[in-house]
């Protein structure tokens, strides 16, 4: 199975790899997946007082598509409000990266990571966690 050029680009030059201080109040962290399933994503956002995401970082254990999905997610998150970010759908990632059907779970994981990071931030800052429609 050949990877799309965009997957290869994100995989070879991953954007925004790194770690934010998870103990800071303005940082939300989402850690999803499990080692025994072959993929774990950690996505972090830094949010300003207007609820705008000013920075995003990721680290991912997984295949090329999982790495590319999370790299793309961090690019999309920067500059968005947390409400707009909540609306990112896994199928947008599938489309952008031209993921084949067997790799759709990678995009689902990225969406889950985004939502988990936002909810972590919300709860830390006295807001309610938002329910998300379940993909699984």
């Amino acid at each position, binding site marked *: *199975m050949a*990877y799309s050029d965009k997957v290869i680009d994100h*995989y070879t030059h*991953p954007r925004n*790899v790194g*770690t934010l201080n998870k103990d800071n109040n303005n940082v939300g962290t989402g*850690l*999803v*997946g*499990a*080692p*025994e*399933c*072959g*993929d*774990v*994503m*950690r996505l972090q956002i830094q949010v300003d007082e207007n609820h705008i995401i000013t920075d995003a970082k990721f*680290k*991912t*254990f*997984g*295949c*090329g*598509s*999982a*790495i590319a999905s999370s790299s793309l997610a961090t690019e999309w998150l920067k500059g968005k409000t947390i409400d707009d970010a909540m609306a990112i759908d896994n199928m947008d990632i599938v489309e952008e990266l031209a993921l084949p059907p*067997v*790799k759709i*779970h990678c995009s*689902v*994981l990225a969406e*889950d990571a985004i939502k*988990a990071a936002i909810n972590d931030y919300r709860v830390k800052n006295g807001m309610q966690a938002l329910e998300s429609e379940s993909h*699984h």
Partner: protein
Amino acid sequence: MISLPIYLDNNATTPMDPRVLDAMMPYFTTKFGNSASRNHAFGWVAEEAVDYARGQIAQLIGANEKEIIFTSGATESDNLAIKGVFEMYHDKGNHIITCVTEHKAVLDACKHLERLGAKVTYLPVQSNGLIDLKQLEAAMTDKTILVSIMYGNNEIGVVQPIKEIAAIAHKYGALFMTDATQAVGKIQVDVNTDGIDLMAFSGHKMYGPKGVGALYVRRKNPRVKVTAQIDGGGHERGMRSGTLNVPGIVGLGKAAELCRLEMEQDAKRLSALRDRLESSLLEMEESYLNGSKEHRLPHTANISFKYVEGEGLMMAMRDLAVSSGSACTSASLEPSYVLKCLGLSDDLAHSSIRFGLGRFTTDEEVDFAIKQTKEAVNHLRELSPLWEMFKDGIDLDKVKWVEH
């Protein structure tokens, strides 16, 4: 100059030796006869070539040429042996013993027979990949007609104690069959000293062509028979009908001859290269060898690089053709059943890479492979949240993972 990508997946298939191709060529064109044509020169020439190949193959494994049955490959040979023995000997008993790390051709043939009334014992393996001989002996009953244990494992290269297994099978009156696809032509295999009654192997794992293989079927002490699974013209002493693949058989014969002459040197050279590759990679933190270090094929190394995922890793090893026990592409996402049977946790199984060296692997290629593998592992560990957590001293077994 080395040419990229580098092929290090010789357990999947080997390139054909050019000398094999040379031997085969005339049998596609001028010497195209059907070896079953008894009444003209075209047939005689083909038959002579097939007989010659039978001799070359028999010599490699210490057999008599009449004991070689040509097939389309090891999968067919496995099926013919297991199903054919069950059908031929089911009056004597219905019990078959095999092992959990066998190739799917053996496991699925056994599963098929279970639906037809066979009772199958799937022996577990120890953490080094070897079966426990005491467990084998304990599983033998007076209904056991066949013990089928592979010679060398395709994923981890572990070589089972074949002689001892055969002796136990025979002690209880059962036949011993082995899938020796990865072993024949790589290490010394002798059907008489090993005590093998049936043995499957294939051309394309020993620098011969694809689409041709053989089943060794013992003719003396005891005389073994299998019921044909493909009916027709009664070729191959009635055990496998179908016009013989003459060029393929000539190629298998030539490949066997080359292995007989060069196997010892090849094995010596490859095990030194493999050891170099392996020890360099095992110098890396949190990397683990899978399967027995002592009892294994000379050209195979299976290594888990903890905290990186195999498929992602292979993508970073972009100039190396290897394979992984991770199966992120399959719908099930299940990692290698062979590695799981060794007791490896799923995350280590997902982190495994199999290196399969071969006759045409060079020193320079191995050096390149070491360098690129190390770079890839380091690159992916920089990206891995698990590596970071490990480095921070977090016990990953105590983390509550959100499975998806």
